[in-house]
């Protein structure tokens, strides 16, 4: 998670997060494919105009999900129930209702992913944590702890890679992926615990207490444009959801 220098990345992370979550909730309550499509398009338009997205970036990020989208759509559409049969062949039976259903669920998922991406691609992780402390009153203990935890992710990846290589050399064949998972999980977990203990000691040795009794290098604040963004986004989404049917 890094800021990408766009207008959207200058906004207050907490405010942005809440606004996006609200739109996602709205998406959950809508069962009309056209409205869902419009809400998804809204995210794409924001991304391109305010989020610094290029078309190539958008395609690269969303393409894997589009495949998933087609799959879900087909599953729901071809095997769903309903009265008005549109097309039938062997055991595939597409009805108007199942078609609607498939499109809505598929688009809803796409919408979720896009709003999520709109947030993660424009938000700096440190700024988010600091904003959670200041605007949402999260305890520094949790915020700094999570930041420290994030540093583990690339480390985990390289360790997992090494374990896979080692198993390959030793002739270990993973027939059952759950068993393989359990085998990899224990050493990774042990290492993870040991590392997090060390980090915790290092942090405390530097005077970290986890309380709010401290100063801050970064102090995100709420400004006018944050309110404007949140209000306009919600207004636009609301208009689409309630006015479009008429």
């Amino acid at each position, binding site marked *: 998670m890094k800021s990408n220098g766009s207008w959207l990345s200058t906004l207050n992370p907490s405010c942005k997060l809440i606004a996006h979550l609200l739109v996602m909730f709205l998406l959950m309550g809508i069962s009309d494919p056209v409205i869902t499509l419009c809400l998804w398009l809204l995210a794409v338009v924001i991304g391109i105009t305010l989020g610094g997205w290029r078309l190539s970036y958008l395609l690269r990020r969303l393409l894997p999900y589009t495949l998933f989208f087609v799959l879900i759509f087909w599953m729901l559409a071809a095997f769903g129930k309903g009265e008005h049969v549109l097309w039938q062949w062997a055991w595939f039976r597409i009805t108007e209702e199942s078609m609607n259903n498939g499109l809505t669920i598929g688009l809803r998922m796409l919408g979720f992913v896009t709003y999520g991406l709109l947030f993660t691609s424009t938000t700096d992780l440190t700024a988010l944590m600091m904003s959670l402390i200041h605007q949402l009153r999260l305890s520094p203990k949790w915020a700094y702890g999570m930041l420290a935890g*994030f540093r583990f992710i690339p480390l985990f990846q390289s360790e997992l890679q090494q374990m896979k290589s080692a198993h390959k*050399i030793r002739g270990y064949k993973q027939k059952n992926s759950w068993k393989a998972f359990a085998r990899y999980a224990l050493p990774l977990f042990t290492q993870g615990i040991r590392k997090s203990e060390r980090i915790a000691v290092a942090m405390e040795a*530097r005077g970290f207490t986890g309380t709010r009794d401290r100063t*801050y290098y970064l102090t995100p604040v709420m400004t006018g444009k944050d309110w404007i963004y949140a209000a306009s986004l919600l207004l636009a989404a609301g208009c689409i959801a309630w006015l479009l049917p008429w």
Partner: protein
Amino acid sequence: MQWQLGCKELSVGFDHQEETVQVLDRITLSITRGEKVLILGPSGSGKSTLLSALSGIIPDHVEAEVEGEIYRQEACGVMFQDPDTQFCMLHVDEEIAFSLENRRVPRGEMDGIIRQVMQMVGLQLEPHTPIDTLSGGMKQRLALACLLALEPDVLFFDEPTAQLDPVSRRDVFRLLREVAGKTGQTMVFVEHVLDGCIEWMDRVILLDRHGQIIADGEPAHIVTHYRQQMEEAGIWLPRLFPYSWQEVVNDPSHPLADVLRRELGERMERDRQASLSSSAASSIHTLSANVSAANAAVIIQTDQLSIGYRKRPVMQQINLSLPAGEWIAITGQNGSGKSTFLKSLLRLEPLLSGRIMLQGKELRKWPDRDLYAQAGFVFQNPELQFVTDTVYDEIAFGGRQRGWPEELLREKTVQLLQEFGLEDYQDQHPFTLSLGQKRRLSVATMLLFDQELLLLDEPTFGQDARTAAELIRRLKQRQQQGTTIIMVTHDMDLVDEHADRLILFRQGEVAYDGTPYRLFTDQKLLQDSAIIAPLHYRLNHQREERGII
């Protein structure tokens, strides 16, 4: 004299499975303001525990049974050995600011202090640099910057260079010495590598295995009078200290100079013999033109090989031909592609282009089963390569996978357990072994099929002198039985003593491929590739320059 730190009759124990393991036993000591103290001892002697107790980590942040009195300062900073587990932020400036935030320094003063401490530790970077792009040595500089930002009265160092390569280690020690000179802070060290730090210590405290002080005095005195105890403790003894470089260079009859000269003579002789035998081999080759015999002697050949991360090449056009039975060392700076090369030799990394021939057959065409019966790979972190729950099973694993009869398996496994000194631990879980034992086990598991080729990624990294020497001794035995050993390492003394051949990776190409002796006597190459030659070569060079010889 003003006391600043100290303890009286201090005993510390840890609760472990319902009994208390005593680590420190009635330690009494006092440290005055500005003193530089080095604590030494074998692993398990409680030297880190003593440091933790003096710095307040025990019992404030780590639970332990503490008896006796401790006098300590409120404002301390502690630097740990693992560069990756002492940071909690993502960028350099935020990390230093974290120290300041904890001290409740007002935001307005932060930028100035951050700039100031970064300058003090020689971090010439844009402050908002991601920490994960820094090398190990740079991370330790940052760690020091974070400590200085705490404005501590006392600085503690728990093996600060254990995870660094020799060049970074030298740089970090130089920096610490410089900072010590400027600030006059009290510094307490735990280290097991003495070159680079013992020269400027005021005092050395030596602990024994039972957590008792056996010596406490001036460094020169301790190093000369307690040499044997230090060797047993696995401390990497200083090569020069208590003598100074000037002394040894200027005095032709200096005892140490004599030793070094003899060492150099040995290396020279070995190099001469190696070149004799290789020219003999090549003349036989041209005379008899027996191509297949010459091929049999080559275990690995690379042909126009390119390797890299993802699509980006790191090394291109590698054309190497590695003879069977030799001890081959590969060195180069971090990120030069040496580990990737080693992995690609066993298909653990994809090739970008070119090909590798193993025993005359293309690597791609080897079935997994045969390939890994011919060659073993020892990873840097042994824990990540263990696959079973006991030491015995760990060694026997490969045979079980191949359905070996139980007697044969037993015989081979017991033989390996004995060879690597692990027979007493055969029912233990591999994770419960000591660091040195884990390393030996990881090598033993790769030899069940009498592999002809053994690849090792920095096998002595982070180990103490004794466990490293023991591992090397066993590898040497294997080599004498015909195993080819290829290792990636930064340790030039190890290379000088054992390797038949040294390959240097630099800026995407093979910058050197030949005997270690020739590289260590080539001043220009040494300088260009930031390699510190072993002491006897340096002495010889210095004397030649001054015309003493």
